[in-house]
């Protein structure tokens, strides 16, 4: 399941609308300590982020992925890993 979600997330980051990789990031982060989620966020930013204004240069997807993965850590620890 983890590999499938990561694969879908990585492919959709390049070809499908942004909400699909976001769903993959959330699903991965809810169930696993998924470093792949951060990779998906970084791939989106490295592929699509333009240079220029400060607002456009902020790697939002990477930051969102990191926040989701680490933000859900207490939940995982409480309900899934114990």
């Amino acid at each position, binding site marked *: 399941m983890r590999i499938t979600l990561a694969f879908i997330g990585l492919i959709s980051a390049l070809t499908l609308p942004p909400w699909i990789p976001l769903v993959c990031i959330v699903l991965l982060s809810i169930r696993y300590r998924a*470093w792949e989620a951060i990779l998906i966020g970084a791939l989106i930013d490295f592929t699509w982020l333009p240079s220029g204004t400060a607002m456009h240069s902020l790697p939002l997807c990477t930051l969102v992925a990191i926040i989701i993965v680490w933000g859900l850590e207490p939940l995982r620890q409480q309900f899934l890993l114990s």
Partner: protein
Amino acid sequence: MQHDARSFYHSRDTHSGRGRLLLATGIVLLLVVTDIVSHGIVRSSVRAGVSTVTSALREIGAHIAQNGYFASHAALAHENQSLQAEVAALQERAALATALQAQVDALSNIDHLVTSDPGITAPVVSSSLASPYGTFLIGAGTVDGITVGSTVLSTQGTVVGTVSDAGGHTSTVLEIFAPGRAINALLDGVALSVKGKGGGNASALVPHGLSIAVGDAVISPTLGERPIGIVGHVDNDPSSAAIQVYIGSIVNLDALRYVFVVPPIRSDSSAPKK
């Protein structure tokens, strides 16, 4: 005893999982910082690879669509896409005609002619749907003479976007109506600031008293007096201080296969020569 052993292994797994996550976070943050410091070296390398992968995925998708059950579905989708492209082309021609008429009127008072800049044709190598930042990739880069700030046009000559990053063989185009992007434009001869909303949509506020109609062309004076969009809806609320105008992109970005890239327009080039 058994419980102790289980908790020991559980603790070890927990630490190892957290360690991997921490390591991944550190590496990604390091890459992001390296990319910012090096002005996009990491991005450039990733995009070169992505360009190859997306081209391969497109070919695989085309092969699947041409076989078996998907063939009839693909034929209908193709017909639908062709009709949409036809409508978009007609809209584009109408907007272009309006823009050209305005340009002719403006040029009739000027005693010199502006020659168009040379440019190159480049293929679109990525989907415009996938980017959350309103960007897409084209298969031409600095090797082909593309520079940051170059204007990207459709084959008909309307503005699609500008080059935000130029790699060796791949460049990133920031759509004209990318989310949060502000563009100076002219509508019915009035200067206004158009704010991009993403997905080929934008909005602007114009003062009351103008005769703005759906289908009017919006022109960018900073991008060679070329049309950038057409008015899709006018929200003329008398209680509001200004008219809210909703503008749509003339070009259907999904249907774009090739674009024409012209060098950046210098501000002094538009000034009349003496």
